[in-house]
């Protein structure tokens, strides 16, 4: 009897929230700003574009997710939340909590604004700042600005991220800070890090779950 149950068990429902140009098989990849056709045409435009054959894609707003309550096992969201307008951020966390099954997990990665503010103060707020530093940091603060949605609109740091997670009713299991320049990076299912690539900014990797 147990065997039968095991074989009948469907595979976990996993959502790649704010997939951008990285679509992965085994995930329902979600982004607001693309159709699948546009995504496919963008492959030439972005070096890091990756569309695994058979990857599912749904165009949707993270503040209004087309999933029923308690239907998702795992949400991974990489460099998405900083693209959400500041007044919509609580709604996105509420949506994540709504669609997760009890015990379902969230893995979320975003930039640490504390480090951006420090970098600005240390590198740009002085007369001999370099143009390169300025444009690099402007991009890290405000997004690459290459197209719709590719703008940053909300700042986070560990305290703020923790506040949103807890406010939405999720339990934070672990928050890991990966420093700028490090080659170390979290084991992600929806990003294939290039070997030895350096992190351009300090990032936070938050792991949380919806309590049963």
């Amino acid at each position, binding site marked *: 009897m147990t065997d039968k149950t095991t074989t009948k068990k469907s595979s976990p429902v996993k959502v790649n929230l704010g997939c951008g140009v990285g679509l992965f098989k085994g995930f329902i990849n979600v982004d607001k700003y693309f159709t699948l056709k546009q995504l496919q045409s963008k492959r030439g435009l972005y070096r890091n574009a990756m569309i695994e054959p058979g990857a599912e894609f749904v165009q949707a707003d993270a503040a209004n997710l087309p999933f029923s309550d308690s239907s998702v096992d795992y949400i991974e969201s990489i460099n998405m939340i900083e693209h959400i*307008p*500041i*007044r919509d951020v609580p709604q996105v966390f509420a949506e994540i909590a709504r669609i997760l099954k009890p015990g379902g997990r969230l893995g979320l990665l975003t930039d640490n*604004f*504390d480090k*951006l*503010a*420090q970098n*600005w*103060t240390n590198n*740009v*707020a*002085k*007369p001999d*700042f370099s*143009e390169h530093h*300025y*444009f690099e*940091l*402007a*991009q890290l*603060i*405000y*997004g690459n*600005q290459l197209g719709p949605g590719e*703008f*940053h*609109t*909300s*700042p986070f*740091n560990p*305290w*703020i991220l923790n506040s949103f997670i807890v406010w939405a009713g999720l339990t934070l299991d672990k928050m890991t800070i990966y420093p700028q320049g490090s080659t170390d990076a979290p084991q992600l299912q929806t990003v294939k890090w290039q070997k030895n690539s350096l992190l351009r900014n300090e990032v936070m990797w938050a792991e949380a779950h919806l309590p049963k």
Partner: protein
Amino acid sequence: MATKTIQKKQELVKLNLGCGVQLVKGFINIDKYLTLEQLKSKKRQYANAVVPKGAKFIQADAANLPFANNSVDYVESIDMIEHMPTKKVIKVFMEIYRVLKPGGKLKMMTNDFDSMAKIWLKYMTKPGFTEDHYYEFSEILYGNQVGPGEYHTSPFNPMVMNSFIVSVGLTLDKMTIYHLGTSDYPKNAQTMGPPMKNGRMRCDMIWAEAHK
């Protein structure tokens, strides 16, 4: 003869570049994101909206101004340049230089990101800040986000501002910093709306005066 010349003298051509919802008579008011109709309808939406009768308005992109070379006496731009995508900022300064007559003047106001970085590092990097603080400060950093164009996309400080001004061939005459928390403001500004004049500065502001 002298009186005749004075009477014949044409009115000065003055631009209010990035007027938003505050149009000023005697200026050609310019904004990318609004039509005059929309502006009038926004009067109800914004407490600070001002659309005087007879004020001229042109919908245009600051990076592509519909004016001939050497045709403008004065450009005033209040809280506009931080709304420009970073890669377009230099083009805006080049356009200002192009349309100004030799001897024509530019006066420009924008947020000082040095002060925003300082405020963030002072108040946001440890617990104790309030939710209101966070939202208010996020809006100062990233714009009020209530409509298209109302997002900040480029950071400035006095050194960065000076670099852009000098690199297009303008001469900086004066740069004044109006400090956070004070209710001081540039008295020689002609297009500045009532909220700035009546309220306190929410972060340090840069007031740059330059000429061609």
